[in-house]
């Protein structure tokens, strides 16, 4: 019975509304006091029923909830036979609850949409060799699954056959489809845009990247920041306090009207709900854009950020060295490039990969008598020629004569931060290549936008030599840049900044930066959905896309601002009502309830604005 009444709350609110309308219409048009009074009496009894039940349930577990305050207020109104106020207050309270539910659902929609992307079924290869549809929970590691065009990838896995394009927006926030073929990794919750693939399940259920993201986002909506914890404690003692104050007011003045008005005014709605609402909308916006913010504390810190420390490799630069500059000397270069590629093909030196990529398709030759000279390069015999590939000191050892022109080129290449790869054929210098790690495209613009958002210091730390670091720093216009740093050094350096009172964020790829991520106020990981990154950091840029950083920062600022606005609305409303009660006569129970519900809706609607937040370009320029 009790549950039946509660489940019909919305219907009851509607009936109350109709009864109240009937009451007033009959009063004005028929001048009939009886219908007026009886309608209101029924309306308030009916409306009070679900509220009283909730109050009783709360009291049973020793909680003084808003329902308790409202029930007492309505009882008081009954005592003084003010059915008009009793009816209107119960109606407003029920109708307000309905509106709150509707609007709150809206603010939570971003995160709900994300969770709804979770796959539910999979096509699993059975023992009879045919694919059968099973619940996703029944998939085990090692199962072979079929994914058809338009279907969701059910688990994290590796493609074993077929090819296709996958939309990975649910993981990375990036909706441009990614090509997948045999051996490619695919993630649960992503959608196969076209093609058909068969995958072997690597991680299932709660171990998938998608499940971890959901878990993280759901947890992030709720864990409490300092401010929220305060409001929580506040609410716990606040409602009983309101009860006591109203009792005292009644004892001293014997004025029931005043006592019940205090009860209604005291309902702590907007104050309790304001901060969580901003929080959920802000985190929801981020999750849709591939920016995971781990909770409101992170948002607060991020909004006050003044220093960002970047790891160089893989963050500001692309992380895989490539040939940036090339110079040829003499003729028969095609042939020389073939020799060079043949030698480099047998090497596992990081620079060799860059050189091979630069040369591309060529004729390969058998390589003989390969000799690796540590720290210098390789000497080998190819097609009857002596080929030397390496740095300047190797050329000196090989007695290669360097012309004035070549010497000038070498100096210039080195100065722009290149590692040098020289190739000599039979003692003649033929090719000079400058290999370096290129700055990510757009990095400079991103850094400028960060400055416009109020970040004062942009610092780069790197294990590379100071020369390379300086060059990147100049190209990007950084505040400071330090080279030759081990991971411990980076952590130490960041600790120093934090001790100086700066609010520091560290941006890294999350793989070997854990100490630095941990010592900064905020660890920002550029993790393409890797577990380490998701677990160790405070903010994750899901598609490793550093250009999302300004959005993350702007969003954090907007969310923090939104929380403050909501607190201001809530406190402001209470202050205005209290002043009205003490110094005026316009505040009664009905006005109190109206304003109370209005302020709750105001903070929810204000929070909802964050869902549509986009970094405004015109503000930045």
């Amino acid at each position, binding site marked *: 019975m009790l*549950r039946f009444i509660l489940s019909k709350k919305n219907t009851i609110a509607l009936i109350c509304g109709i009864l109240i309308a009937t009451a007033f219409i009959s009063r004005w048009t028929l001048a009939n006091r009886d219908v007026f009074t009886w309608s209101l009496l029924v309306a308030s009894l009916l409306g009070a029923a679900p509220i009283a039940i909730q109050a009783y349930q709360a009291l049973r577990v020793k*909680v003084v909830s808003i*329902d308790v305050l409202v029930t007492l207020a309505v009882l008081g109104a009954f005592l003084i036979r003010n059915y008009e106020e009793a009816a209107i207050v119960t109606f407003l309270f029920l109708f307000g609850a309905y509106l709150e*539910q509707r609007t709150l659902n809206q603010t939570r929609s971003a*995160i709900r949409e994300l969770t709804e992307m979770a796959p539910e079924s999979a096509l699993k290869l059975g023992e009879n060799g045919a694919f059968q549809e099973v619940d996703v929970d029944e998939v085990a590691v090692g199962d072979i699954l079929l994914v058809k065009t338009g279907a969701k990838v059910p688990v994290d896995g590796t493609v074993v056959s077929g090819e296709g394009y996958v939309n990975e927006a649910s993981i990375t926030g990036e909706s441009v489809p990614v090509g997948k073929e045999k051996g490619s990794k695919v993630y649960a919750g992503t959608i196969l845009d076209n093609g058909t693939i068969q995958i072997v399940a690597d991680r299932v259920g709660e171990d998938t990247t998608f499940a971890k993201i959901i878990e993280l986002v*759901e*947890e992030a909506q709720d864990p409490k920041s300092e401010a929220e914890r305060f409001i929580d404690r506040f*609410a716990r003692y606040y409602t009983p306090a309101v009860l006591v104050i109203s009792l005292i007011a009644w004892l001293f003045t014997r004025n029931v009207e005043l006592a019940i008005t205090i009860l209604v005014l005291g309902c702590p709605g907007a104050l309790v709900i304001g901060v969580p609402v901003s929080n959920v909308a802000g985190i929801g916006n981020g999750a849709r854009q591939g920016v995971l913010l781990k909770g409101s504390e992170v948002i607060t810190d991020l909004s006050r950020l003044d220093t960002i420390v970047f790891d160089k490799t893989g963050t500001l630069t692309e992380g895989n060295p490539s040939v940036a500059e090339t110079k040829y000397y003499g003729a028969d270069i095609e042939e020389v490039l073939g020799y060079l590629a043949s030698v480099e093909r047998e090497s596992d030196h990081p620079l060799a990969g860059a050189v091979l990529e630069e040369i591309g398709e060529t004729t390969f030759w058998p390589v003989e008598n390969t000799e690796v000279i540590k720290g210098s390069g390789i000497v080998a015999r190819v097609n009857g020629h002596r080929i030397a590939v390496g740095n300047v000191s190797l050329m000196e050892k090989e007695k290669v004569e360097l012309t004035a022109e070549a010497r000038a080129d070498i100096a210039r290449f080195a100065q722009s931060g290149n590692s040098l790869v020289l190739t000599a054929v039979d003692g003649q210098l033929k090719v000079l290549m400058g290999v370096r790690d290129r700055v990510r495209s757009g990095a400079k613009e991103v850094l400028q936008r960060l400055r416009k958002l109020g970040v004062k210091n942009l610092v780069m730390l790197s294990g590379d030599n100071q020369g390379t670091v300086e060059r990147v720093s100049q190209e990007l216009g950084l505040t400071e840049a330090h080279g030759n740093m081990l991971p411990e050094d980076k952590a130490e350096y960041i600790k120093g900044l934090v001790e100086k009172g700066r609010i520091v964020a560290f941006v890294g790829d999350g793989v070997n930066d854990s100490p630095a991520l941990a010592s900064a106020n905020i660890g920002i990981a550029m993790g393409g959905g890797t577990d380490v990154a998701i677990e160790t950091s405070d903010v994750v840029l899901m598609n490793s896309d550093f250009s999302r950083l300004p959005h993350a920062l702007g969003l954090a600022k907007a969310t923090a601002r939104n929380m403050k606005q909501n607190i201001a609305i809530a406190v402001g409303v209470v202050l205005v009502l209290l002043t009205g009660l003490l110094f005026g006569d316009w505040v009664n129970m009905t006005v109190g309830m109206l304003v109370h519900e209005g302020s709750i809706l105001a903070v929810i609607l204000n929070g909802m604005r964050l869902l549509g937040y986009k970094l405004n370009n015109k503000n930045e320029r």
Partner: protein
Amino acid sequence: MKSATIQMETLTCPSCLQKIEGALKDLDGVEKDTLKVLFNSSKVKLNFDEDKITLAEIEAAINRQGYKVLQSKVK
């Protein structure tokens, strides 16, 4: 010791959290420190001792407060 995640219907009122917390924290077998009521995702997470209390009993306690349980997962 098992851990449960209980999905409820949408929580809206600010005192819902207190009520559900109050209803669960003193149940024998529920580990008080692990009890978390998540407002925005409308979920309860807790660890419980399966020798002392069943999931059905925990769900019933939430139900008695007037909140419908939609789905529960136990590990």
